[in-house]
């Protein structure tokens, strides 16, 4: 009886909230996922296997995964730097800069793609000078990484920022007094603190990059085997009214992303545990 009361006090409306959560998750996530599995099941095992190991599909996976990985990695570096600057320094325009971070989310992705392509094509403002150095951005994998870096920046900044805000500068001062170099302080004090958040941000950015379609198709050039992303393969199969194969490609992407996210979450949980000890 007492247990029941305690339960009631701590979690008001436990039954109701759990029921609602479960139906919500089923409706919004689970049922659509299951429908993907069912759609691709129409192909049969052989058809499924043939679809997903097709060299062109494999090439598109490679482009998607490598470019998302590169973009997430780049953002790990610059995102942390940005978060650091926003948290630790006071300068005019800081609030505006802070507000700008979310902009990549608010912009329709097609607009992002068209704007970046115009900027980075070899006739564009930034792409022109770069092209003279022999560096082509738009219509190459570099363009895809560029677009994904733009789209996924907020994830890293917004996950790392609150952690940095909580971090007491006292520890850094202590390190400095003990004669540690700036690099040492970052490695031994700051990095362990922000690692769990950074990993979460990295995972979010990576997953978002995998699924990104709208902006990438404008800047990628979409050449088979070179700059064709997996979501485009899915779209092109849908365009042929080939629902089974499209969902098969999607399913492999889903499975792979799930495994990667699971791995990241496991590492992240370890890292979080390490900090608490």
């Amino acid at each position: 009886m007492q247990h029941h009361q305690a339960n009631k006090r701590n979690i008001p409306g436990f039954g109701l909230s759990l029921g609602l959560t479960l139906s919500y998750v089923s409706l919004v996530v689970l049922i659509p996922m299951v429908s993907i599995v069912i759609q691709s099941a129409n192909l049969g095992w052989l058809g499924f296997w043939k679809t997903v190991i097709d060299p062109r599909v494999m090439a598109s996976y490679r482009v998607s995964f490598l470019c998302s990985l590169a973009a997430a990695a780049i953002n790990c570096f610059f995102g942390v730097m940005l978060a650091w600057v926003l948290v630790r320094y006071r300068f005019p325009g800081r609030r505006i800069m802070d507000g700008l971070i979310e902009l990549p989310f608010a912009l329709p992705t097609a607009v992002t793609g068209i704007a970046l392509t115009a900027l980075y094509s070899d006739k564009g403002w930034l792409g022109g000078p770069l092209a003279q150095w022999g560096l082509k951005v738009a219509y190459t994998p570099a363009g895809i990484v560029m677009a994904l870096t733009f789209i996924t920046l907020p994830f890293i900044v917004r996950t790392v920022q609150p952690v940095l805000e909580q971090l007491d500068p006292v520890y850094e001062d202590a390190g400095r007094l003990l004669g540690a170099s700036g690099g040492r302080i970052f490695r031994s004090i700051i990095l362990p603190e922000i690692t769990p958040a950074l990993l979460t941000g990295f995972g979010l950015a990576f997953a978002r990059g995998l699924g990104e379609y709208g902006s990438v198709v404008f800047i990628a050039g979409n050449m088979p085997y070179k700059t064709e992303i997996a979501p485009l393969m899915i779209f092109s199969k849908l365009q042929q009214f080939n629902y089974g194969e499209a969902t098969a490609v999607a399913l492999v992407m889903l499975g792979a992303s799930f495994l990667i996210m699971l791995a990241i979450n496991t590492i992240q949980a370890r890292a979080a545990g390490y900090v608490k000890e």
Partner: protein
Amino acid sequence: MKKILALSLGLAAFIGVALAGSLQAAELEITNVSYDPTRELYDSYNKAFQKYWKGAKGQEVTIVQSHGGSGKQARAVIEGNEADVVTLALAYDITEIEKAGLIKPGWQKEFPSNSSPYTSTIVFLVRKGNPKALKDWGDLAKDGVGIITPNPKTSGGARWNYLAALAWADKQYKGDQKAVKDFITKVFKNVLVLDTGARGSTNTFVQNGQGDVLLAWENEAYLAIKEKPGEYEIITPSLSILAEPPVAIVDEVVAKRGTQELATEYLKYLYSDDGQRIAGKNYYRPSNPEIAKEFANVFDLKVNLVNIDDPLFGGWDKVQAEHFNDGGVFDQIYTPPAK
């Protein structure tokens, strides 16, 4: 509990009102689901039709206009986007809607000229002065020519581009299949960017300055010239394809919404002199030859045009299976890079 009850009652009432509102509005409303490049055409056509209907029947009509990639639009209709009429890029896409049971077979005989009130063709848009001297399809296979075209797998318009090149090559090489395939392969090796849709390609060529030639619908090419006069030229090749973007009534939807008469009149009016002229003004070739003659100074009416039902192609189903489906001739152009 009471709160929840009140909330759900409120919600139900709200949904009810919204539903009733939409039902009322639906009385004289039709939805036209179309593809991308017809935006400007239907903008002016819808206004003209509304005026015509007001004059003839004294009623106000609302026309909901939707644009997107042709295949995507067809899928949306199949999946329940209630279109009274579809005006798409390819008969193939409308046939897919027919297969889903929403349109009765034989729709392509319902209106004149294969149910295509206007036609178009594929032309070359080149930069001013035509620096690479591209005159005909053969020039596109030369080394160092940069071509911009959308991807035939994702864009209805791009399939016409591909077929136009194919038709020319078939005539040029007198049906030698290997030579034809080599030619098509060479042309597509010269393609720099494969955008997913026609508008994307126009953007790549016009705004981002990529490539020497854009393979485009005649109407898209004229729009680009209108937007930036003096920067481009249109080259009409010796032979091209007769692109017939068809129209159809979605029988299931009009039966349900009771819009049969309105939808029929809406499509019929496209064939009136007025409708035909609107098509011509928007750079679509009117299917009525008399009206087409009025636009002789715009269109090269002498170009040799091949129809999709020509024995060379044998209709959309055959072409789609042979060339554009996965593993088809188009896919064979792109082989994995040598390791």
